[in-house]
Every structure is written in structure tokens, then in C-alpha cells.
């Protein structure tokens, strides 16, 4: 099953065409090429994962400035560690392990969770793509549902939210999430189930 993260990164439309899969290098190949001195490979890799990592950080630390600072730290660390990179796991596991560790350091420094007002940027914060022929009432309903969903995600316990974000934004499976967070697979699975159940229950009246 293709995740929405893959869909967003553009993986889905090529997933069923072997020729396209050969033409599109994997994350690991791009990272190895970057380790060998190919700066363009990094640009491609960054374009694939910049949004997911940023949203993971933003939802976890709930602070735009802190998220940007952590985001830059993570990618600069990856750039500087390119000579030590070995293909021992999927690149996304490596990337989100870096993100998780940076986030833990951020929390340990005392910069704990901050609640972000989902209304601070108005309705534009949840601008949902819609067709030109969509009805205004439908668009307003979708925005309301999105705001509610984000409130529910923000209300999740940190561990459950982390698992949910890694699954949805990074496209990691249970084993990869377990490797990135240092938790065991069953705990990750349980957290994901609880998170999905809470979101479904919270959105029961809006879907």
C-alpha cells in the first residue's frame, strides 16, 4: 500500500512502471552520489524530504522558529556527515533518526512543547486544494475539518504523535519507526493504533 507521504513525494505515479523506477534513483543512491561529490544529488534528495521533515518538526515542537532552527541543523549535519554515510538502512530511517535525536536534544535543553495557535495564520493555514468548480460551502467545511484534525493531532500524546507523523510524513513502516525512535516494534504499533483511533473518534462528527 502506498502511503500518502509517497504520494506527496511523487512516488505513487511511478510505482507501477519499472522503467520509471530505473530512471528515478533511490534515496540511498542519491545520498551515495552526494557523498561522492555530486551536489545535484543532494538537491534532489532535499526536494523529496524537505516538507515531511519540516512538518514533523513543526508538529512536534509547535514552534515555527524552533522548527526552522532544528530543520537547518538536521540537514547541515547530514551534509557534514556525508563521508561517513553507509547504506545500512533506508535513507528515510537515517534522516528521521537524525530528526528524532535533534528533537530530543531540543526538549532536553528545556525548550519544551509549545502550543501553537492554529488560528494565528487565519484560515490560510489550512488552505485545502480544491477544484475551481467546488462549492463555497464545501470549501468552508473542508477547512473546518482540517482545523479540527490538526487540533486532534496536536492533542495526541507526544509518543503517539511522533509515530503518526513519521508514518504519514516520512512514510516509515513500523520497523523503521522503531529504529528511528529506539522503541520496540510492538510499542510503535500500539502507539500508531491509539493515535489513529483517537483521530477517527475525534473526527467522527466531521467526516
Amino acid at each position, binding site marked *: *500500500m502506498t*502511503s*500518502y*507521504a509517497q*504520494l*506527496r513525494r511523487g512516488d505513487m505515479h511511478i510505482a507501477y512502471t519499472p522503467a520509471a523506477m530505473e530512471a528515478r534513483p533511490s534515496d540511498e543512491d542519491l545520498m551515495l552520489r*552526494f*557523498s*561522492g*561529490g*555530486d*551536489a545535484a544529488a*543532494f*538537491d534532489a534528495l*532535499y526536494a523529496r524530504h*524537505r*516538507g515531511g521533515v*519540516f*512538518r514533523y518538526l*513543526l*508538529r512536534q515542537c509547535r514552534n515555527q522558529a524552533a522548527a*526552522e532552527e532544528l*530543520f*537547518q541543523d538536521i*540537514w*547541515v549535519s547530514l*551534509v*557534514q556527515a*556525508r*563521508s561517513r554515510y553507509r547504506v545500512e538502512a533506508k535513507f528515510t530511517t537515517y534522516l528521521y533518526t537524525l530528526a528524532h535525536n535533534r528533537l530530543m536534544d531540543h526538549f532536553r535543553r528545556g525548550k519544551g512543547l509549545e502550543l501553537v495557535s492554529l488560528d494565528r495564520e487565519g484560515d490560510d493555514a*489550512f*488552505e*485545502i*486544494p480544491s477544484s475551481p468548480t467546488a462549492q463555497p460551502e464545501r470549501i468552508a467545511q*473542508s477547512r473546518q*475539518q*482540517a*482545523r479540527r*484534525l*490538526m487540533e486532534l*493531532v496536536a492533542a495526541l500524546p507526544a509518543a503517539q504523535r511522533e509515530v503518526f507523523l513519521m*508514518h*504519514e*510524513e516520512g512514510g516509515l*513502516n*513500523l*520497523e523503521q519507526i522503531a529504529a528511528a525512535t529506539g522503541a520496540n516494534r510492538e510499542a510503535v*504499533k500500539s502507539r*500508531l*493504533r491509539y493515535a*489513529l*483511533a483517537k*483521530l*477517527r473518534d475525534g*473526527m467522527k462528527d466531521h*467526516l
Partner: protein
Amino acid sequence: MSADTPKDRDLEALLDATSALRQQYHFASQEEPPTGLDEAIRAAARREVRARPFRIGSGFGASWRISASIAAVLVVSVTVAVMVSRHDGQSRVIGEQPSPPTGLPAEMGASKDQAEPTAARRATKKQSEGDTAKATPQARPPAEVAAPAAPVPVEAPMDKSERAAKIDSQIGRTAKERDEPLRAQAPATTGLPAATESPTPAANATAAQAPVPETPAKAAADATVPAQPLTKKRALSDSAEAELKGSPWEKDPQAWLAHIEELRSAGRIQDAETSFRAFRSRYPDFQLPAGFVPPVPAVSN
């Protein structure tokens, strides 16, 4: 996300049930990092690539560095080993002066004094063999191979005799005159035979029975053996040496004979005989005066 095990089927079912919810999340979650941040990160990546084009630990860069490091270590090690061995060799030559293997050049262990006779001998030998045999450059004379550690100065006595003959010709001395004092002093100083060509047949016979060293090395080894009486003449003169020691007439045979005459006239016959034996050992060829009657029969002559 696919279920990996049968236990994950419930999770798979839950994911399917919440697909609409998840799709709504993705449509709602559209935040992106600022463009300035993107540019800063990409610029950092390009700087890093420019600073270190090749990854350390792999590829051409790493193999080149490793190879160069190994080569440098080997060169330094060999150089140090050669220098240390040369230094040790020089110290040994200076301190011990070992006998170098015959045929080696002087700079490979032989001192200059030892190398020159070797070269001279080789030249002499080559000259002598040059007419009869054509030796290949690689062929080494059997004597040199058989005795590589033998002391080199075999020709030294010949050189010394030649040098002595040259000195004799300059001062007008004969070879016999030169050998006389040497023959008398040699037993007392070195223990070697006084002379191989003694003027008396008895002395020659005794000398022929004496152990004559065949090689200079053996002679050097025998040099530590204390002096032994080698001839009858030498044995008789031993007692006279004590009488001779410190006598004022040692260098004047006429005065010495007068002294012997005085001893005899004084009734000291034994002393006269001992002194006359000493006289004969010192001057074996001296022509006695017509009126002088020897106290004992002459040992030689």
C-alpha cells in the same frame, strides 16, 4: 503500509478505515520550510562538496592516499635501516678492525690498509695468471674462496725485506750484517726462531726440527708461547747473557778479551769460561788475537 505479520492485520484494517482521515490530513498539512532556509541548506551542501570533492575512506582519493602513505612508510623504513647498518659497520671497523672477506672492496667492510694489499695481491696474481689462463671476470681464485677470512698481509714480510734491502743499499750495509743483531734478539723478544739460515749445520738442523708456523695466522698464535732454546749455541749463551748484561766491554771485543784474560789470570777460570761463551755468542765471527788462548773450546767456528 502493508501488514508484515498476521498480527498486523488489525492495524492494516485500521489504516484502511482511516484512509479518508489520513487523506484529509495530507491535504491540510501543507507547511513548507521558508525559501531562504532552502537556499541556505543547498548552499551549505555545495560548499561542502567544493571543500571535499571526494569522500574520505572510499574511491580514488582514499586509495591514492593509502597507497602514498604505505609507500612513504616503506621508503623511510628502508632508508633508516640502511643508514643504521652503515653506521654500525663503520663503528665496527673503527673499533675492532675485523678481517674483511677477501675480494670485497674497502668500502664494504675492509679498512684501507687491508684493502690495498688485497688489491695489490690480486693485481699480482692476475698478472701472473694472465699469460697462462684466461680467467672470466666472475671467476674468483680458489684460494680466495677457500680462505675468505685469512689475514691479508701475506706479502708483508716480502715488502719489509725489500724495504730493508733498500735501506741497506743506502747505508752500505750487507744483509748479513743486518741480520746479525736481529738473530740475536729475536728469541728473547718474540720466541720465534732466530734465523732459518743459521751459519752452522747444527743450528740449521735444530731449527728444522723447531715448529715453524706455516701461515702468518699460526705464527701470530704461536707468538704467545714463551721463548724456548732452539739451538745449542743459544743454550750455551744463556748463562753468558747475565754476565753480558751491563758489561762495559759489550761493544768492544778487544776489551772483552782483555777482561777474560784478567779473570783467568786471577784464577777465576769458571768466570773466564762463562764470559768467553758470552763473548762468542755476541761475536761468533770475531778473529781471536794470535796470543789469546781461549779458556774453553769455541762452541762455534
